[in-house]
């Protein structure tokens, strides 16, 4: 018997023990932390708890956007997976109850993965998957009472956005998709409104069954956004705009009401509009394309026409042209080789600048622009920019348009960009065009433009002075410029948001419209402008529209604007303000014709509505 042989076994046993202990140390101590994480990945599932989104209120606390609950049918994918047939029978029964095909439900509840095509569920498999949102209460009850037939199917109330005022201010309010604000105030104040999602960490076993709750973090509801919008004024503006468009004002338009002294937005209406409740049930790609999502009040750009003359008059004053001096207003004025005419070729005789604004004489401004152009002055453009045109106002709404203040440089740049096409047309003409005369005219135009199109000429300056020839403004830009005229020259970046308030009522922050500049006009010039514009609705171009208006109760001042639009009816403007209530009201109708015919009556309706509100109080 060999003791050496036993020693061999002892050595082998010791080696095995050392191997096992070494491996155990490596797994548990050296790599322990990594395995703890891996264990949590295997075991812990996080289920997000959506927060309640904050409301959007008007200035008096009326809800513009609020929440309500609706029964939503949800399906627990894990519970379905544990059915013997993978949940096929349950989904088929559910489809019968909801009146939907099995396939549609199956697509909604299958979990996204590398080999799973859309549509599929992208969220957590432990989160209830909503399969039907517009469920009637009887169907919801039927499902919740027959739980044995619908394992894993639940009906639960889910918050949805509600719009008590329907289409009113739809663009301004914006919309929410996937718990994220996508447009309007919902997007601009998303961080305030969204709140913070909570979550429940649950432990699951190897079959995915939840065994216990590890941690629960309740969601933090979003803050309430109080706006300066007055729902009643908004309704008045919506109605006035709608009626004006319906009676031949075209398809699009906008109405803006600002508080002149503060730059706060009281009402923003735009057409075409849509009912924001379409977002509640989800929008298909096709429906989405058909929705009029553009907010005409901040994203629509039109030539301002004669409403622009406040900037031209201020430029004239700054350039040394006496506002009280007398100017002749002939029916036409020749710049270069072209005659520029008054509206309808009217001969209005000699008048002061006051009269030029009240009666909207164009030829005085043509001459003014021609003279400044000859001097090589860019006073018109500088003044227009000083009135806030040509750049976004910085309003607290997304996607704002900048408008356009054309000048020599921008014309040259544009010409450079389009020269190749213009010169090709000058050689080849417009053979595809049926109208021979029009084709010949356009070819001639192209020939001129090809040679010297990039040069800023006297004609460009003349058109510019009366708010034509490439000048573009948004209704909000025009409103804040007129508000600045009314308030003594302070140019604000308008704000719709007034303050952010916690659900408990404490104010998180107050939003003040920032001052972005002062109008490049002296107090005397502004006084002159207010006085001249005060005459427009009384005796000037808008006198017809404002016939019988109670100026004694609201001293409305304003300016009509008629902008020619090639091949279409004129764009109709009315920009107005009053000292008490200190509002600025701007209305534009894309094809409203003359300002005095389309926009001015609509603005009058808004003013009368405001008056009615004040006198009811």
């Amino acid at each position, binding site marked *: *018997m060999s003791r050496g042989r036993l020693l061999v*076994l002892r050595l082998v046993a010791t080696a095995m023990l050392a191997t096992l202990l070494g491996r155990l140390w490596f797994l548990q*101590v050296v790599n322990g932390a990594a395995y703890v994480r891996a264990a949590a990945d295997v*075991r812990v599932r996080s289920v997000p708890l959506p927060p309640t989104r904050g409301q959007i209120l008007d200035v008096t606390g009326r809800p513009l956007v609020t929440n309500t609950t609706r029964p939503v049918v949800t399906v627990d994918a894990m519970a379905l997976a544990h059915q013997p047939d993978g949940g096929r029978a349950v989904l088929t029964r559910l489809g019968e109850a909801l009146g939907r095909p099995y396939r549609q439900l199956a697509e909604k509840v299958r979990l996204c993965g590398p080999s799973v095509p859309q549509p599929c569920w992208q969220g957590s498999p432990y989160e209830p998957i909503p399969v039907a949102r517009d469920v009637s209460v009887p169907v919801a009850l039927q499902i919740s009472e027959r739980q044995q037939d619908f394992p894993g199917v639940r009906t639960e109330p889910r918050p949805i956005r509600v719009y008590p005022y329907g289409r009113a201010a739809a663009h301004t309010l914006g919309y929410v998709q996937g718990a994220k604000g996508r447009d309007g105030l919902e997007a601009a104040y998303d961080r305030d409104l969204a709140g913070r999602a909570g979550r429940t960490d649950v432990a699951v076993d190897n079959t995915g069954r939840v065994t216990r709750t590890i941690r629960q973090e309740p969601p933090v509801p979003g803050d309430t956004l109080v706006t300066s919008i007055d729902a009643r004024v908004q309704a008045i503006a919506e109605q006035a705009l709608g009626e004006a468009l319906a009676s031949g004002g075209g398809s699009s338009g906008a109405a803006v009401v600002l508080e002149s002294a503060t730059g706060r937005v009281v009402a923003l209406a735009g057409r075409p509009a849509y009912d924001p409740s379409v977002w509640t049930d989800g929008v298909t790609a096709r429906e989405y394309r058909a929705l009029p999502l553009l907010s005409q009040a901040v994203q629509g750009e039109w030539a301002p026409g004669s409403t622009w003359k406040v900037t031209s008059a201020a430029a004239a004053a700054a350039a040394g042209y006496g506002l009280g001096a007398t100017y002749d207003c002939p029916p036409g004025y020749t710049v270069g080789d072209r005659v520029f005419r008054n509206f309808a070729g009217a001969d209005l005789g000699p008048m002061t600048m006051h009269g030029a604004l009240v009666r909207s004489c164009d030829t005085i401004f043509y001459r003014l622009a021609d003279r400044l152009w000859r001097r090589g002055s860019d006073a018109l453009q500088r003044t227009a920019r000083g009135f806030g045109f040509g750049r976004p106002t910085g309003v607290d709404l997304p996607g704002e348009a900048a408008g356009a203040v054309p000048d020599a440089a921008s014309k040259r740049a544009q010409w450079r960009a389009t020269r190749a096409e213009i010169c090709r047309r000058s050689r080849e003409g417009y053979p595809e065009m049926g109208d021979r005369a029009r084709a010949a005219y356009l070819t001639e135009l192209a020939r001129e433009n090809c040679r010297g199109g990039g040069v800023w000429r006297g004609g460009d300056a003349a058109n510019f002075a009366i708010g034509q020839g490439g000048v573009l403004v948004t209704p909000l830009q025009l409103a804040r410029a007129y508000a600045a005229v009314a308030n003594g020259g302070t140019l604000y970046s308008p704000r719709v948001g007034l303050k952010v308030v916690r659900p408990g009522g404490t104010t998180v922050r107050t939003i003040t419209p920032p001052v972005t500049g002062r109008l490049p006009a002296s107090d005397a010039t502004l006084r002159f402008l207010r006085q001249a514009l005060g005459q427009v609705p009384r005796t000037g171009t808008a006198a017809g529209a404002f016939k019988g208006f109670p100026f004694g109760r609201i001293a409305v001042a304003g300016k009509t604007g008629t902008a020619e639009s090639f091949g279409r009816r004129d764009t109709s403007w009315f920009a107005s303000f009053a000292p008490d209530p200190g509002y600025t009201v701007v209305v534009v109708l894309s094809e409203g014709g003359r300002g005095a015919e389309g926009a001015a009556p609509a603005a009058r309706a808004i003013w009368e509505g405001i008056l009615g509100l004040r006198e009811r109080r």
Partner: protein
Amino acid sequence: MIAVAGKRRLVWAPALGPPDRLLTLLALALSGTGLLLVWSATRMAGGHALLVRQAVAVGGGLVLMWLVSRVDLRVLRAYVPLAYVLALAALAAVLSPLGVRVNGAHSWIVLAPGVQFQPSELAKLALAPAFAVPLAELRDGRRRPGFGVVLLALALAAAPIGLIALQPDLGTMMVFAAMVSGALLVSGAPKRWLLVLFAGAAAAGAAAWRLGLVRPYQLERLLVLVRPGADPGGVGYNAAQARIAIGSGGLSGKGLFNGEQTAGHFVPEQHTDFIFTVAGEELGFAGAALILLAVFVLLWRGLSIARHAASPYGVVLAGGLVSWLGFQTFMNAGMTMGLMPIVGVPLPFVSYGGSATVAGLVAVGLLQAVHRSKPVQP
């Protein structure tokens, strides 16, 4: 069979020395730890049925251990042929329609609903004493077993191993091979024969591989060891989850009954072959290492018993038993930690399973019997 004579003294134990108390203590401690771990692994499944069954097995095993420890080796040898034949019969019955297939292998016999046993576990108990009989019969004054004796012993081993290969149960086969190798080693068989034997075993293994006698699932289990990413849904999943459970225990563990991986049943077969993962997760390095150390000390005592055994038979028997328990422990702990291929062998004393628990405890009883048997007085 049991007859009592005199004062509480069994007739077949004419002259017994004192038992090795440490050996008994370690067997008790390991079985007790096993019960706690089985409890932890099965408590979330509802009911204590499995725990109770295991407790019954431990209790029965301890009684048998006590009884066996009091048997004189010479008396024991008289019953070896009977036990060996019974074990072979049971192994053959497993392959008959009486056997039940579990995890791809016929390894169970159901005696009555709920009463079943694994003949291969009991066959280990039968083979260890049987194998030692020829090796210890040294005639003609030889100090080492001769070639013929070794061949006879191997023939005795070949029968049960062959039957287990037919089940097929690769893990148990390997345990048997380890037991036979250990017994041969300590029997003092000449080195060159041992070398020839190992070479032959290696050649047979290679031939089995080449001839496709290794089943696909066995191949898979071996491959997983080399490439842990292979077969993530099957054996690879098992290996990965076992490692996660053990690794997440850290130095001090999450505490008994606090193992979250264990509670979630992420490790398949956790209360049986993967019981070591419960120890790893809940008791940490400290507890798991202590279990391994306990087994090691038990084996060390077993080898000491072999060294001081009164007869060559005792040496070979103890050597075989220690090799069996040691190799099986290494295989089991090694496979849960990704060191060894995943072949279904239980952790001695600790894993759930009546047959294995009883076999382990009776093996300790046999070691005690070797320890207590006094040298023959001429």
